[in-house]
């Protein structure tokens, strides 16, 4: 039985990171070279963007609603129930909208990409593509990365909006707040820095989701079991990276836009 070697394990992890970075870098470089797979990009945008719309709307709406409900007790104790709109918009736009949308799309699409490309890998379709002179990073990875990055940006905006609507539903029907007051405080409390933070995060998250999904798919080996493993790993890795990178982006942008 082979003895576990910490050095070998560390080396293999470094190689994996290197392979991922190279794939992610190549997916960006491909934007500047030909051929460009415009039709594939649009098809992926439809699959990722339109396909994820129902879960993003549902998640956003109920997150906004529960946020209003959970914070209402505390706000009421301080006589600040009127700030519900501000709190919901602040939380949704800066943090929850992009992160929850990212996590939802990661669950749906990072795993989907890993299983699709993984199946192609284990059935030699990726090798067949390379053998026919077609670069899989151009044909498969770049369209997914591009469309996921762009679509997550718009999905986050939709999530923010329906989250605010969810908060309003609770504020109006259960807390008895005035609609005008809710929407005015929600709108006026947002500064440029908040919106910028809320819109820059999904761009990074979208890139992470697609590049991680494609990386695990293209690294799949060991038949159907390997595809299953790649699918799970892609979803876990993308979700963890979203949460970790969220902290760093937030810290960085708080430094750029001090309050």
């Amino acid at each position, binding site marked *: 039985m082979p003895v576990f070697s910490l050095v070998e394990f560390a080396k293999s992890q470094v190689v994996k990171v290197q392979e991922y970075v190279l794939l992610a870098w190549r997916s960006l470089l491909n934007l500047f070279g030909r*051929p460009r797979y415009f039709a594939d990009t649009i098809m992926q945008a439809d699959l990722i963007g339109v396909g994820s719309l129902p879960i993003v709307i549902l998640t956003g709406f109920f997150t906004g609603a529960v946020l209003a409900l959970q914070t209402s007790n505390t706000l009421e104790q301080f006589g600040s129930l009127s700030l519900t709109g501000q709190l919901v918009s602040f939380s949704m736009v800066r943090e929850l909208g992009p992160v929850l949308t990212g996590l939802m799309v990661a669950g749906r699409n990072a795993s989907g990409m890993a299983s699709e490309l993984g199946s*192609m890998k284990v*059935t*030699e*379709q990726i*090798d*067949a593509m*390379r*053998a*026919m*002179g*077609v*670069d899989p990073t151009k044909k498969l990875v770049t369209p997914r990365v591009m469309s996921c990055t762009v679509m997550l940006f718009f999905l986050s905006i939709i999530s923010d909006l329906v989250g605010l609507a969810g908060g309003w539903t609770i504020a109006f029907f259960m807390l008895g707040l005035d609609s005008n007051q809710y929407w005015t405080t929600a709108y006026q409390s947002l500064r440029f820095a908040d919106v910028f933070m809320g819109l820059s995060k999904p761009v990074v998250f979208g890139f992470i989701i697609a590049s991680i999904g494609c990386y695990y798919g293209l690294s799949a080996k060991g038949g159907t079991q390997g595809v299953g493993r790649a699918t799970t790993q892609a979803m876990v890795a993308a979700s963890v990276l979203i949460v970790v990178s969220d902290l760093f982006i937030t810290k960085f942008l708080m430094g750029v836009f001090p309050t």
Partner: protein
Amino acid sequence: MATLAPAGTSEPVAPSGDNCVLSFEDVSIAFEEPVLNGVSFKLYHGENKVLLGAAGTGKTLILKLALGLLKPDAGRITVLNDEITSMREQDLYGVRRNLGIVFQESALFDSLNVEENVAYRLIEETGKITDDIHNRVLEVLRFVELEQTWPSFPSELSGGMRRRVAIARAIITQPEVLLYDSPTGGLDPVTSNTIIELVVKQRDVYKTSSLLVTHRLQDAFTMASHYFDREQNKMMPVPAGKALDVHTTFIILRDGHIIFEGTATELLRSRDPYIREYLS
């Protein structure tokens, strides 16, 4: 093995000048263990080499190395005058366009229909299926006798039909070198014979050089003992005593080395105990 012996003569392919289309020079590769160790051979224009050997001796690996899908640890591989071992992946795509491969499990794109699979390379160049491409697809599908299947998806075809579609995909651009990875593996004898007939047809009609990996000795000897008769449109045995060069030679791999390279006749005359056992 008497029934497998070639009926006609199968003279060694005489290389004329520097018409080598593929060469391996002292190629070695190892994964956990060494798989290929100092393998050298040359494939000349119009020549067909059959790679034989037990499972795990690196036959498929040789095809993947020839395509540049894997890089050797040592040695040089030259394909159509390009030394591919030192080429970047991006530069290899150009070289691969002159090669065709039939994968062991066909490797057809399951989300594309037969026409899109066969025309994949051509669609990459034009961006869509034009009338010319459609006609070309029908032409190669006719060659493999599957003309009616062009709108079908791979999942709707039998294993043998998928293998024939894979052959059609490989030959649509008339590559200079064809690589077959166990094209008859897992097929029944009748379907295997149909596939070998297509390989022989491609060899004799288009004079394409090829490297064929197989486990089935019968297929290898059929290739060495038959030719494609264009008038009768079928594979025929080379008549006894007739000097007809079928341009087919054999390579046997063992423990990472080539232990035999030569014609069917030379193979049958070999005194090597391992080869005798392998042939029996």
